[in-house]
């Protein structure tokens, strides 16, 4: 809330400068977002006395006036306003002034008469929309002095961020002034005017409260309300508090809202048919709001209704039908209290957040209606020429002061420092909390305006912040010695990331959502498995990612603008739902390589992954071509015959391969892009533990090069399996050359043979190689090549 420093000073009695006051509030109560001089824009506007008014020789509608400025001499000013008259105090914009309405004042000659300045109307001064005539100031205005100063605009504005737990007491001038006085160790200034509402006759407009969501309803009927605009001082306070003046009745309700934190609503009493009924809205009812919008009401909404139907959305916004107009003379003023959570529901359902709903959501106590209503009555009578016809006061629930019993040892427990109990009691006393002692315990009586004070810890907070947190020294804790337990997944994640980075992969992070189009590319089977945002930020971010691949491909395209080849990874979560409504979140390793010119992308990816698997001590990994009947939508962005399914001990952990041509097109890529998508948890759980020592081979292995020619359809994986099965002495197999020609494939291997307990002989090796030839010929028609 924006507070006028001058008003706070008047109410609280503080002697602090604005900056000192802001700092005090910052360190004891709330964050002060800004402390700024009020920018009124009226620097060259001075109060003048109209000495004489004469007619203009060449224009019937213009007057030539002489205006005096005390010691500042007199000026001749041509004025077009019909209401200008001798003896008036007026606001004069002198040459050089730039007014809030945008007008720049210069010396001018108007139809042959030199005019030095302008006598201003309200709208030109930014005080309202009235342009009927010039603004006439009260008699006490002193000619020659600054208008801004006279109108109270020389002020500093404190923008204070009221915390949600202090919504009940602090979103008002009186509440904040009470807080400031308490911080300075003083009791609040007299809060409550000693008048009661019962001194007025019952209002002619009946009030019936039919819902317990309305806790109290005070209705005040006025007659004789003038439609004139509000007095200058009232407008000035509203403007400095960031509220635009509208008309006197509405201005008074806004003023009372600022002063007491009590929202009010003014109805045109002549538009109310029958009496007022406060009730829940009925099925099918609708309401045209003050701003002209029509809303369909929910049965959860509370409305203010008459015989015809809803007049206002209770605690949120008034309706069009009973709004105040310039013809209104009889006003029915509502000063009511509503249940916070129901107002919150209504405001959020209709997406309406108003000054009233903001306060009601944060709790307005029922006791506040009385002083607020009396304040408003005084304003209607004194400034709007109104008189009170009657008052109705219906209470369904009355807030009472609450007693809380607690042990003051909580202060020491909380802050680690002894706090003198007398000080604590005094601090609470300044906040209106009366403490009595009962043995070792305290009984605190809490005023209705502080529903946030309900237990020992609440009081500890109050005492702590009032003393100031700086007062509590920093102390080293005594703790029980315990060894941190290492989270495997966190440790493995860190190792994996570091390993990948040292293998040349850059790490990126991308959003957890993507677009509907991204989701759809996984095919119809995957549509139901995507979780969707109920309130997305923008259309590119509607679905939760079920795969990290789409974002990786978007980022590939973006990086291709600047780089020709690169490799990156992301370790992040993907999210999915299944048919039974269960949701899953799975950490995934996503890798992309855009190979260099001439580089075999898949081979690079496979090499990198094999290195990774060795690093993670994964045993028994297997690569196989994606089966033709693989229908998993997750793989639909990959190339069907250039992609491998990777498994560890028979369990699939992910896929690796080339991005398919359709996806390359869809994501605006070029050339070859390869990617792997692996389950992080399966990688981690399969990763090996600490290795134990194996005896070192004492006898050298004998190595032979063997070259086989097979049909192109035979895979190297198959040949390798056959070779391993064919020779019990085989210790190592390594492919060192692959050559394809005319539907045939020539593969050359280094084969190493050996015994653990003796040196293998040349003869034995010869037999083993023969066995390899025989087996490969038999099982995959391999021919030995030269």
């Amino acid at each position: 809330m924006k507070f006028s420093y001058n008003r706070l000073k008047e109410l609280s009695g503080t002697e602090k400068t604005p900056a000192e006051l802001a700092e005090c509030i910052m360190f004891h109560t709330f964050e002060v977002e800004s402390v700024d001089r009020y920018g009124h824009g009226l620097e060259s506007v001075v109060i003048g006395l109209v000495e004489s008014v004469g007619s203009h020789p060449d224009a019937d509608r213009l007057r030539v006036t002489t205006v005096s400025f005390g010691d500042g001499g007199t000026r001749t000013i041509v004025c077009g306003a019909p209401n200008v008259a001798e003896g008036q105090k007026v606001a004069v914009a002198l040459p050089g002034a730039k007014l809030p309405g945008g007008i720049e004042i210069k010396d001018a000659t108007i139809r042959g008469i030199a005019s030095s300045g302008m006598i201003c109307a309200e709208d030109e001064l930014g005080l309202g929309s009235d342009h009927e005539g010039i603004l006439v100031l009260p008699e006490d205005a002193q000619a020659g002095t600054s208008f801004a100063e006279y109108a109270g605009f020389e002020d500093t504005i404190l923008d204070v961020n009221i915390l949600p737990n202090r919504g009940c007491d602090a979103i008002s001038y009186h509440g904040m002034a009470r807080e400031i006085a308490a911080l300075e160790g003083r009791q609040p200034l007299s809060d409550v005017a000693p008048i009661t509402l019962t001194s007025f006759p019952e209002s002619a407009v009946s009030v019936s409260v039919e819902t317990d969501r309305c806790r109290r309803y005070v209705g005040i009927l006025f007659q004789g309300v003038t439609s004139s605009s509000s007095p200058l001082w009232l407008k000035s306070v509203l403007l400095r508090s960031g509220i635009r003046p509208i008309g006197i009745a509405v201005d008074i309700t806004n003023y009372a809202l600022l002063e007491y934190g009590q929202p009010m609503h003014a109805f045109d009493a002549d538009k109310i048919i029958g009496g007022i009924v406060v009730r829940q809205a009925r099925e099918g009812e609708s309401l045209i709001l003050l701003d002209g919008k029509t809303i369909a009401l929910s049965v959860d909404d509370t409305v203010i209704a008459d015989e015809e139907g809803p007049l206002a959305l209770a605690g949120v916004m008034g309706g069009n039908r009973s709004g105040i107009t310039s013809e209104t003379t009889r006003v029915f003023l509502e000063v009511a209290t509503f249940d916070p959570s129901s107002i919150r529901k209504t405001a959020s359902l209709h997406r309406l957040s108003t000054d009233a709903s903001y306060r009601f959501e944060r709790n307005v106590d029922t006791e506040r209606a009385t002083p607020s209503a009396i304040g408003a009555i005084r304003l209607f009578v004194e400034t709007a020429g109104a008189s009170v016809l009657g008052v109705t006061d219906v209470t369904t629930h009355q807030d009472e002061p609450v007693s809380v019993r607690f042990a003051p040892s909580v202060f020491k427990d909380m802050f680690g420092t002894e706090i003198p109990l007398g000080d604590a009691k005094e601090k609470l006393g300044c906040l209106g909390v009366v403490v009595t002692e009962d043995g070792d315990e305290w009984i605190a009586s809490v005023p209705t305006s502080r529903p946030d004070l309900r237990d020992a810890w609440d009081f500890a907070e109050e005492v702590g912040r009032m003393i100031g947190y700086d007062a509590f020294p920093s102390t080293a804790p005594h703790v029980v010695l315990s060894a941190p337990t290492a989270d495997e997944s966190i440790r493995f994640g860190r190792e994996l990331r570091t390993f990948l980075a040292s293998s040349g992969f850059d790490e990126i992070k991308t959003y957890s959502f993507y677009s509907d189009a991204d989701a759809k590319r996984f095919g119809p089977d995957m549509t139901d498995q995507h979780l969707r945002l109920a309130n997305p930020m923008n259309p590119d971010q509607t679905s939760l990612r079920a795969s990290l691949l789409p974002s990786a491909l978007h980022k590939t395209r973006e990086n291709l603008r600047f780089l020709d080849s690169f490799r990156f990874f992301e370790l992040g979560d993907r999210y999915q739902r299944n048919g039974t409504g269960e949701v899953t979140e799975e950490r995934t390793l996503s890798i992309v390589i855009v190979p260099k010119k001439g580089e075999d992308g898949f081979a690079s990816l496979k090499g990198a992954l094999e290195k990774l698997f060795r690093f993670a001590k994964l045993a028994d990994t297997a690569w196989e071509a994606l089966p033709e009947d693989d229908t998993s939508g997750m793989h639909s962005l990959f190339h069907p015959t250039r992609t491998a399914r990777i498994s560890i001990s028979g369990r699939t952990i992910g896929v690796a391969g080339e991005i398919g041509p359709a996806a390359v097109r869809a994501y605006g890529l070029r050339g070859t892009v390869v990617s792997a998508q692996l389950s992080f948890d399966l990688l981690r759980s399969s990763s090996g533990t600490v290795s134990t020592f194996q005896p070192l081979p004492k006898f050298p292995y004998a190595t032979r090069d063997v070259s086989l020619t097979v049909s192109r359809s035979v895979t190297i994986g198959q040949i390798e399996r056959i070779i391993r099965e064919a020779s019990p002495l085989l210790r190592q197999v390594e492919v060192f050359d692959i050559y394809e020609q005319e539907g045939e494939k020539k593969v050359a291997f280094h084969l190493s043979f050996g015994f653990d307990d003796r040196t293998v002989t040349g003869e034995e090796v010869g037999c083993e190689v023969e066995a390899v030839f025989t087996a490969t010929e038999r099982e995959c028609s391999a021919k030995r090549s030269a």
Partner: protein
Amino acid sequence: MGTERMTEIEEEGKRAFAEAGSDEVLRELEVRFFGRKSELTAALKGLKDLSAEEKREIGPSIQGTRTVLMEAFVVAKERVEREGRDWESERIDVTAPGIAEPLGHLHPITTMIAEIEDIFTRLGFDVADGPELENEFYNFDALNMPSDHPARDMQDTFWIESEGLDTRYLLRTHTSPVQVRYMETHVPPFRIIVPGRVFRNESTDATHEHTFHQFESLVVGETGDVTVGHFKHLAETFFAEFFGHKIDVRLRPSYFPFVEPGFEFDISCVFCDGKGCASCKGIGWIEIGGAGMVQQKVFEAAGYPRGKYQGFAWGFGLERLAMMKRRIPDARLFMSGDLRFIRQF
């Protein structure tokens, strides 16, 4: 042959080896001093004919001369080889580039999380983790934010379409849900840290990103054992480690439903040591994060008895800290996936 002769041979040999200028000369000298017909060899052979006393007298000097000359020979041989070689013809250009070994770069947030984890684990903290796709209970209700609580407005939430799901899901707005998840399975005293990705449904600009990373720390013990004073101490210790010099911590009142009292905490400006500079807008302090003493309602939500335990929780945004430490001007760069950005770190 006496020791005098040995000294003479030694002097002569040392001079000859030092003057030798070619392989040929060296070979001749080798024969002359160590050859079968050399005086030294003859002397060594002659030793066996001497009496034990003579042997004791002259033996060491013959051996000594031989060792000295052998060393002189090796030195001379190395020198002749070095001097005789055409080194210039073998020269390589050491300024030519190396064969590229690829090096990747970790995301700056990853590096920062590791740095922070290391500091805390040295202080005896456990690292805890929780889901990003969280349900309403852990993210809000258990943290004293029932659905009608205005404090829910403080955190704009990405909600998940709930049709067909067992409960209302959302993307966690903070790492605090992990507090309750951890407490459900652990008994105080404990101290943990929770780093992780969080989400706020807010439009992005140079200082705001709807997806960012948070870090929080939770310390719980018996009532009276874990105080505001201890929090100050831990925060000062952490930031001093993190920035490498002494940092002051200042608390201001604030409100978060899951703590009471709640604080905003500032640290003394790391660029000017609190004197006031452009980075701290001249005030000497930088607003870093939120903190507070754990609300008893949070303990209750985790199944702890009311009033038995006390603790503090505090957290901060990692991007903000990284932006400060690494002078990164725009928060959106972190999620940009731009490798030119990543490769700077």
